């Protein structure tokens, strides 16, 4: 493969990523963008899969068999606990404007600067080797490509420098462009997602080529394993013993914590999260990604062993084999996949390291030394400088120190560092008694033991180890770094995991029980845990009289802010804080001041971290000593008025919160049941309406039959006459034409009756409202009852203008009219000269339809009940008493009303419905 072509392809790929990043930064502003959706969120987790996965896993599998999979099984198992843990962390991030994992730990432990400093130092020391691992991989694979072209070898260093420069540009452009670290970075996420897809695709393509093109498939390779390796390199070592099992479990647990607590993972999982609902999607998409990217790792490693390669050579198998077999395009793709894996990790890692170092090392230093105060106004530039220095340090580390160390040990060393975050975070989230001093003891012990048992010995790996490492300091064999307290036989990683876990966890637990928690810290912890349980910020607005000058306090805030931002940005920042505190008056209460203090500190945390922000706001004395005393006195007064101790008060508040939550759950459950019942009732109502309709139709059946019978008689008679004329041979054209016209007319009449019946009986529940001519509706309805009325000698009068239009559901309106006509005809049976009048007229914005019969009205006591369901005055078997109540429901659905006109001397029902229906607003 031509190196020029490879480098050209690399340059094109980088330019594409740059363009994509720029596009995403510029165009994607909305939080609802697909880029902030669940699938992209899940794919951004794949920054976990670095070159250590892409190339290193094969070497790891070649060395340790199935042990390699623990790095990916761990996160899959860990995903089980994401819902209760990660969601809480995300809620706290949103409330405190957390910028990094160290910031999160500081925020929990009373904004402790000391904890921030210890963790920042450990992270820098622990993660430079991990970044170096990525550089090593990039440089090694680039070297492999260049080795085929001796002409380019002199430019090797220059090419490496160009790649380094590109990485620095990526970090600064997409990760460190804004001062506000807690904001999401659409450009970086877009690039990460593309890189994740590229590396997955190329890992699968490369694996498929080796397993299915060069070999006979997975099964064949796996089954050939016993002939290749000794029993201790079997899939599961072949020997059952506690130490191997412990190694396996410890690697899994380390990986399950690393997927959230490596600083870069915390960044993509927490800081870049736009909606906690996405966690549910990521909890299965990301494990599936891990399974897929590792699908061919073990078979490829076995293939490497089969070919007689060593574990070290196995790391480059994925690239080496396609190259050797002349698959240049595939090799190019794999090179770009590996490059993607490295650059994705480096970008996020360097970005988070530079933010943590600036916020938790440089800014606290600037608080201690007046000579370094200038750093406060140069935060962004400081981050850029730290990023460039970290890149340079990582590069130099791999060049001069790490070149002899296997990739795998470098990665696992960093995993053990990440694990030191786990105890303080879990205790912090789930144990309210965990305090700052306890956490500091645990973290210091854990980090120190990590350095002692793992990091320092790793420096001397492969070289002549000093005596104190082999024999223990001052000859104390119990203090040997790699066999501490006489524990031997475990791998270095499992050994360090054991002791750091015990000391870190034990330190926090015992330290928190031993050291007393201050009242201030207790309050802070309570607030922190409330946020984790989704209990919103408790405003203090109502406390005190409005006597504090907002203008004066605003000046104090501005004086603080201009140390970090330019004047314009500082003023905008202040306005935002005032707006969020809902301060609109020139004088505020002490409670409002407390809210403002909290919001300024929280918003400033988004830029400089919670510990530095807390320190800065305290220094600014936004709440002076007198106001602090006033606030305390006010709380004390409240408690004494309520006659409770602070502890009892807290218990009562907790009880009320719990009660409120219980009520909420019960309300939700009741709502759910109510909705279920409502749906059932609606369904029953619909069935009832339909059966009532059919019942009304049934009552008219006799009339309808007669209505059809008359035209049938006409048809029969006409046909008989035609038959006679045909037989006689005197069928005249004019007569025949006249007869057929008559036949067509009567058959149309029958068809219209049947059509009306079909329409009337259809069970469409809520058709749309449509403009309909009222006289047509009357005609359709009367078609069912004309004959019945004729039979009963009822004189029917219809008064309606031909052009009267109403927006309605025609079948339903027809049902109402039919019900009223039925009732009228039943009521006037046996009366002399019975008559019914149906009339429609305009009444302003409504249409009024009245149905009057010759009855003498309805008595008041019956009129009040007439619209109730199951109320009937008809005899047994003649009606169920639903007609009017259903009619009332239909008319009300139309936004109208139905009533008995008590002023009329005859029985008169009135239906009023609006001419035009109001439009429903969605």
């Amino acid at each position, binding site marked *: 493969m031509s190196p020029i072509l490879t480098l050209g392809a690399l340059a094109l790929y980088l330019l594409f990523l740059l363009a994509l990043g720029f596009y995403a930064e510029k165009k994607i502003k909305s939080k609802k963008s697909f880029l902030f959706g669940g699938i992209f969120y899940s794919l951004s987790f794949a920054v976990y899969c670095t070159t250590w996965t892409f190339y290193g896993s094969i070497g790891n599998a070649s060395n340790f068999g*199935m042990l390699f*999979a623990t790095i990916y*099984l761990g996160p*899959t*198992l860990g*995903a*089980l*606990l994401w*819902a*209760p843990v990660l*969601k*809480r962390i995300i809620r706290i991030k949103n409330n405190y404007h957390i910028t990094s994992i160290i910031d999160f730990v500081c925020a929990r432990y009373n904004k402790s600067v000391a904890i921030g400093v210890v963790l920042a130092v450990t992270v820098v020391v622990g993660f430079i080797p991990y970044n170096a691992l990525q550089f090593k991989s990039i440089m090694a694979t680039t070297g492999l490509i260049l080795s085929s072209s001796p002409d380019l070898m002199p430019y090797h260093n220059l090419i490496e420098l160009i790649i380094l420069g590109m990485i620095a540009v990526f970090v600064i452009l997409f990760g460190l462009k804004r001062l506000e670290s807690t904001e999401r970075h659409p450009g970086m996420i877009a690039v990460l997602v593309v890189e994740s897809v590229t590396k997955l695709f190329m890992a699968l393509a490369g694996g498929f080529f080796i397993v299915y093109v060069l070999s006979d498939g*997975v*099964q064949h390779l*796996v*089954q050939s*394993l*016993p002939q290749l390796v000794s029993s201790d390199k*079997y*899939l*599961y*070592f*072949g020997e*059952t013993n506690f130490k*191997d*099992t412990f190694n*396996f*479990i410890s690697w*899994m647990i380390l990986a399950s914590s690393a997927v959230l607590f490596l600083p870069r993972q915390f960044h993509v999982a927490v800081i870049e999260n736009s909606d*906690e*609902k996405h*966690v*549910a*999607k990521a*909890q*299965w998409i990301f*494990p*599936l990604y891990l*399974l897929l990217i590792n699908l061919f790792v*073990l078979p490829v490693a076995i293939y490497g062993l089969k070919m007689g390669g060593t574990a070290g050579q196995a790391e480059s198998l994925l690239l080496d084999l396609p190259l050797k077999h002349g698959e240049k395009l595939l090799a190019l793709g794999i090179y770009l996949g590996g490059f993607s894996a490295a650059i994705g990790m480096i970008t996020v890692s360097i970005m988070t390291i530079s933010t943590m170092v600036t916020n938790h090392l440089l800014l606290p230093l600037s608080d201690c030394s007046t000579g370094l105060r200038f750093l406060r106004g140069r935060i962004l530039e400081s981050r850029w400088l730290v990023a460039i220095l970290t890149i340079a340090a990582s590069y130099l580390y791999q060049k001069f120190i790490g070149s002899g160390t296997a990739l795998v040990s470098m990665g696992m060393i960093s995993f053990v560092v990440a694990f030191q975050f786990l105890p303080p975070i879990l205790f912090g989230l*789930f*144990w*309210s*008694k965990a305090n700052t001093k306890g956490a500091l003891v645990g973290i210091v012990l854990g980090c120190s033991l990590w350095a002692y048992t793992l990091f320092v010995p790793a420096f001397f790996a492969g070289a002549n180890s000093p005596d104190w490492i082999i024999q223990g300091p001052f000859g104390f064999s119990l203090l040997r770094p790699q066999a501490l307290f006489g524990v031997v036989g475990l791998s270095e990683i499992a050994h360090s995991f054991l002791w750091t876990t015990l000391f870190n966890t034990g330190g926090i637990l015992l330290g928190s029980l031993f050291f007393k928690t201050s009242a201030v810290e207790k309050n802070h912890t309570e607030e922190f845990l409330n946020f984790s*349980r*989704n209990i919103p910020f408790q405003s203090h607005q109502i406390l005190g009289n409005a006597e504090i000058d907002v203008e004066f306090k605003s000046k104090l805030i501005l004086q603080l802010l201009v140390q970090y931002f330019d004047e314009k940005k500082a003023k905008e920042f202040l306005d935002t804080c005032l707006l969020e505190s809902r301060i609109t008056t020139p004088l505020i209460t002490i409670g409002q001041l407390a809210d403002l203090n909290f919001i300024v500190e929280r918003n400033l945390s988004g830029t400089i971290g919670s510990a530095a922000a807390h320190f800065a706001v305290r220094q600014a004395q936004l709440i002076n000593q007198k106001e602090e005393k006033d606030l305390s006195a006010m709380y004390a007064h409240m408690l004494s008025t309520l006659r409770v101790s602070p502890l009892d008060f807290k218990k009562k508040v907790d009880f009320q919160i*719990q009660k409120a*939550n219980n009520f*909420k*759950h019960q309300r*939700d459950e009741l709502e*759910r049941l109510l909705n*279920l019942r409502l749906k059932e009732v609606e369904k029953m109502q619909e069935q009832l309406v339909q059966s009532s309709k059919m019942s009304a139709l049934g009552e008219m059946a006799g009339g309808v039959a007669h209505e059809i019978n008359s035209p049938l008689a006409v048809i029969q008679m006409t046909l008989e006459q035609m038959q006679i004329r045909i037989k006689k041979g005197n069928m005249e054209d004019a007569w025949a034409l006249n007869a057929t016209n008559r036949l067509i007319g009567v058959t149309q009449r029958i068809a219209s009756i049947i059509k009306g019946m079909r329409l009337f009986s259809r069970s469409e529940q809520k058709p749309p409202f449509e403009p309909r001519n009222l006289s047509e509706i009357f005609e359709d309805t009367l078609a069912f009852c004309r004959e019945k009325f004729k039979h009963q000698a009822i004189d029917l009068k219809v008064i309606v203008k031909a052009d009267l239009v109403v927006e309605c559901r025609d079948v339903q309106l027809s049902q109402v009219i039919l019900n009223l006509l039925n009732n009228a005809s039943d009521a006037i049976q046996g009366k002399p000269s019975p008559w019914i009048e149906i009339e429609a007229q305009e009444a302003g914005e409504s249409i009024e339809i009245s149905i009057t019969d010759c009855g003498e009205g309805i008595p008041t006591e019956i009129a009040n009940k007439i619209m109730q369901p199951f109320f009937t005055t008809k005899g047994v078997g003649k009606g169920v008493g639903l007609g009017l109540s259903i009619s009332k429901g239909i008319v009300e659905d139309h936004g109208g009303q139905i009533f008995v006109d008590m002023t009329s001397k005859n029985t008169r029902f009135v239906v009023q419905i609006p001419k035009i229906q109001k439009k429903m607003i969605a």
Partner: protein
Amino acid sequence: MNFSEIKAAFQRLFSAIEFRIFVFILFVGVFIYPFFGFKNLVDPWQVYSYFIFAWLTLIGLLFLMSLVDDNSEDTGQFDP
């Protein structure tokens, strides 16, 4: 018992941290079982298939959990 009631029951089960910890421990056991169950390994393919199947099962379970994820307010108290 209708679908929504079954869903609500699974929602309660899957959102219980105790259940999730139980599944975590269970699958740690599943993955280290070959240390004990396949001591005299004769067929590596059997072990490999077991392993991949267990991994897929776990992912399937995570998928099911995500389907009924309720995002309700998590008010669990675990303070000793």
